[in-house]
């Protein structure tokens, strides 16, 4: 265990002040509630904390008299943050610095959309990214967030080291050679072991990607799925509900000149699908013809750009999401079941259904632990009730031993999760040791870990 040099604290002089100023109670006037990006999760926290240093953070955790939940960008759909205790922002842990040999040290509060360009200017690139970049790096990694690519692991696969501040007030350096068990537990840990303040990431030389999108029949896509996954650097597909089509997206390395994506049409396309759903819902046969016909008119597109401009898409249409990670060999069969369910039982679904591929890794609570995987994600417009739809789809994943994305909606409890994760007991032993009083556990995590 190492303590950071206390002299580095910006609040060195008023030693007692950090505890008072950082723990800011609700001001007189308007009480600011908390909600997540979709508006599906709400809380009325009694405190909002934003420690400026690791020592300040350690004191807050050690002296906590109620639950403390770290909050990133609030992008998780699952209730990882809500608490009547305090929510804690890592906003001040926001630096990006190059280390040696294509490594970077990144503060936990850095958002993915603030990471790409600085890394690029440092001569580094993330190996892969998800298609949403609003999240903080700690929030993304702690929930197993991932992009797509048969030979690419989730983002946490590229972590070489991290610093964790624990509820016992310790500041731990963790890697494969230092506190290795904590490292294996902490890489995907839902903010349940304490608060991570920085990551050392193993990066690549910057690269350009050629992104191609096109529509093709869904039936053809079933047959070609694994070939597409294996023959492109990154491959994903969207099934367009109540149509006969799928949208294919591939990216591959290129030396071609940059021809940017330009203004994103994704949000308008989703709104059009919603309109089609609403307008033609009274005649399903016609709606299928219309959606198919309309999706048939979508021209193939091709863009070239540097890596950090290609991956992310703008998501201004808010939604709630459920995503499960399945053994890759089972994905086509699972998708067929989901498609059949949507076609026959969910006429009002219009959000495209997203399928991606991810390589295995060895973080204990990684949904990709020990198995090459594919992910299947369903979305519901944020103003509509997601539960009936998600409950129906979720039942398809259980016989396949599916593992839900930690940051997205699911109903699994400790008993089921223990069966799905070979290192579940090991994780909980580390968790109980680092957080004996359960400072980090809100109601959701008590259900997930089975903590009484």
């Amino acid at each position, binding site marked *: 265990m190492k303590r950071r040099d206390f002299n580095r604290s910006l609040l060195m002089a008023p030693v007692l002040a950090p505890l008072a100023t950082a723990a*800011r109670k*609700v*001001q007189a*006037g*308007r009480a*600011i*509630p*908390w*909600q*997540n*990006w979709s*508006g599906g999760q709400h809380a009325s926290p009694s405190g*909002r*904390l*934003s420690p400026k240093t690791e020592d300040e953070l350690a004191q807050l955790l050690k002296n906590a008299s109620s639950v403390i939940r770290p*909050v*990133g*960008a*609030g992008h998780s759909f699952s209730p990882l943050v809500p608490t009547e205790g305090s*929510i804690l*922002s890592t*906003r*001040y842990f*926001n630096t990006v610095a190059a280390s040696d040999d294509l490594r970077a040290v990144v503060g936990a*509060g850095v*958002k993915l*959309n*603030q990471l790409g360009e600085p890394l690029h200017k440092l001569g580094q690139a993330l190996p892969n990214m998800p298609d949403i970049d*609003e999240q903080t790096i700690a929030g993304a990694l702690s929930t197993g967030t991932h992009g797509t690519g048969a030979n690419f692991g989730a983002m946490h696969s590229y972590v070489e080291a991290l610093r964790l501040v624990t509820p016992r007030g310790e500041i731990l350096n963790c890697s494969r050679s230092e506190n290795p068990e904590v490292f294996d537990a902490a890489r995907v840990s839902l903010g349940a072991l304490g608060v991570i303040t920085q990551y050392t990431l193993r990066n690549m030389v910057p690269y350009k990607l050629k992104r191609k999108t096109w529509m093709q029949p869904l039936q053809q896509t079933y047959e070609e799925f694994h070939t597409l996954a294996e023959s492109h650097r990154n491959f994903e597909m969207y099934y367009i509900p109540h149509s006969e089509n799928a949208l294919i997206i591939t990216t591959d390395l290129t030396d071609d000149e940059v021809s940017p994506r*330009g*203004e994103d*049409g994704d*949000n*308008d*396309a989703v*709104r*059009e699908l919603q*309109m*089609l759903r609403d*307008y*033609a819902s009274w*005649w399903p046969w*016609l709606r299928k013809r*219309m959606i198919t*016909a*309309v999706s048939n*008119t*979508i*021209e193939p597109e091709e863009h070239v750009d540097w890596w950090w401009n290609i991956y992310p898409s*703008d998501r*201004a249409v*808010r939604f709630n999401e459920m995503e499960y990670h399945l053994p890759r060999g089972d994905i086509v069969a699972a998708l067929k079941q989901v498609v059949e369910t949507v076609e026959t039982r969910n006429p009002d679904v219009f959000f495209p259904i997203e399928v991606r591929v991810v390589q295995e890794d060895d973080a204990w609570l990684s949904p990709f632990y020990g198995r090459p995987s594919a992910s299947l994600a369903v979305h519901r417009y944020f103003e509509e009730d997601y539960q009936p739809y998600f409950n129906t789809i979720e039942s398809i994943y259980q016989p396949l031993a599916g593992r839900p994305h930690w940051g997205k909606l699911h109903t699994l409890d400790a008993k089921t999760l223990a069966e799905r994760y070979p290192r579940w007991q090991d994780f909980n032993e580390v968790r109980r040791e680092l957080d004996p009083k359960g400072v980090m556990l809100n109601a959701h995590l008590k259900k997930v870990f089975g903590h009484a």
Partner: protein
Amino acid sequence: MRTLQIAATSTLLLTTLLFTACSGESGNSNGASPATTSKPSSKKMMPDDPDLASLYTQSCFSCHGTGAGGAPRTGNSSEWQPRMEKGMDTLLDHTIDGFQGMPPLGMCMDCDEAQFTALIEFMSSGS
């Protein structure tokens, strides 16, 4: 027959709409000019107070500094005037609940009312 006529018309209408969207001519709902013509000055404006500047950079800038998603640009009085006319209470409601392209809390997880107000005042005036 009448049903088929309505269906044909709606197919044409919606096909046109979707085609327009995918051809990249999608405008934004409030009629503001697209981000590609945003004045460089919005991107350069920064609060004097370092704490407020830090909040602004990490939460508001990515949309309000650039005009992305139709957000009223920092210091652009013509875009901010109709918003300010709604009153600070309404603007705070929008910030907390999310509004159009802006997510709840404007991505600031630890701002209180005074900080939200200061950020809105900064963005509307640019100083």
